[in-house]
């Protein structure tokens, strides 16, 4: 399985972000998107997830199951956590698990991995920013999907939670998944390659 981007170009608000960008990520690999603010990291991730149409080029998955679209095989964890404030932690997780078609046993495992078991009956609105982030990341484990798209995944996580996330990502890579992550801080993911965005941009 290989995720291939072929000559992608994208512009936001009339400003060119990247042009003719080509790369490939194979199963078991991580691609780290690096670059200054506004370099187009989020735009690239949202393009792969299928929310944005690229101006030219295409993204395709080679060797994946043919009956699913690319975006149905992606876990997208963006800046927002997709957590409902007036549902409890367990209700939030249960909804995403069932909606995304995850296996039953994974729910407890996901909550436990991210240290949320003790908080399961608390409305998610009372969680701290880091705990909400953990709940957002727990979605990655609720349903099995080969491609993980992470946009600044370490935001507001403490160092222990960052290690948990790194462990989850490395386990995903070891089981044949692939990860594309935008980041400013080093994340310690295995088998990672860097893709520098926005180097051509003038440092105005």
């Amino acid at each position, binding site marked *: 399985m290989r995720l291939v981007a072929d000559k992608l170009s994208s512009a936001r608000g009339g400003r060119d972000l990247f042009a003719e960008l080509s790369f490939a990520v194979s199963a078991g690999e991580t691609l780290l998107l690096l670059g200054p603010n506004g370099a187009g990291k989020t735009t690239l991730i949202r393009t792969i*997830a*299928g*929310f*944005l*149409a690229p101006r030219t080029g295409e993204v395709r998955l080679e060797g994946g199951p043919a009956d699913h679209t690319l*975006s*149905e095989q*992606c*876990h*997208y964890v*963006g*800046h*927002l*956590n*997709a*957590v*409902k*404030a*007036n*549902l409890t932690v367990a*209700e939030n997780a249960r*909804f*995403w698990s*069932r*909606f*995304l*078609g995850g296996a039953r046993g994974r729910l407890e495992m996901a909550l436990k991995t991210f240290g949320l078991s003790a908080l399961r009956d608390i*409305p998610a609105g009372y969680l701290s920013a880091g705990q909400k982030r953990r709940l*957002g990341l727990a*979605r990655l484990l609720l349903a099995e999907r080969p491609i993980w798209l992470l946009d600044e995944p370490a935001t507001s996580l403490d160092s222990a939670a960052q290690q948990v996330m790194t462990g989850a990502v490395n386990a995903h890579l070891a089981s044949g998944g692939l990860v594309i992550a935008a980041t400013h801080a080093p994340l310690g993911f295995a088998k990672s390659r860097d893709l520098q965005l926005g180097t051509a941009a003038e440092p105005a």
Partner: protein
Amino acid sequence: MSAFWQLVRRDLLIAWNEGGTLGVALGFYLVVVAMLPLGLGPDLNLLSRIAPGLLWVALLLAALLSLGRLFETDFEDGSLEVLATGPLPLEAMVAAKGFAHWITTGIPLTVLAPVLGLLLNLPLEAYGVLIATMLAGTPAVSFIGAIGAALTLRARRGGLLLALLMLPLYVPTLIFGIEAIGAALADSETFMPSFLILVAISLAAVVLAPLAAAAALRAQLQ
């Protein structure tokens, strides 16, 4: 299909936990209808003649209050993006949310309407027809409103824009809803045709509105 019902279930659960949204819609309906006799004077004949129209117009306004939030909360907390990567086509996602909105707003407003009919001296024999026409017409209110909610998702003060965009589209529902009640009261044969057209409008809205709303949402997610 299970993802569809899971989404309906979640929206019902959120509405139940929140409570406030429904309370505001019901309270607004009550206040608007209670104010009207004060403005129009205590002419019972006049009130009972215009009661069906007043109840329908006030119901539309009350439903619009909560329609603005239909996709907004999911958009703000990032759920909409995750829903878009889910196994459900965006059209079915819109349909699930529209259906949940009908259950949490359309049905409670319909149930409240006969109570408010008392304030307007609505003839007793009209109550059954009132409930029937509102049950038949409110799906169109929720589903057509979903188009407006999707279109105004990222607009500041989208609620006002939503009302401006959507109220004209409610004209057919309004006309046939009121016409059906009037015909039933006058024992006229035109009740069935009006009622069936009302049902047809709702069915068409349930099928077609998700297509339009999903197209609008795709543009909003860009």
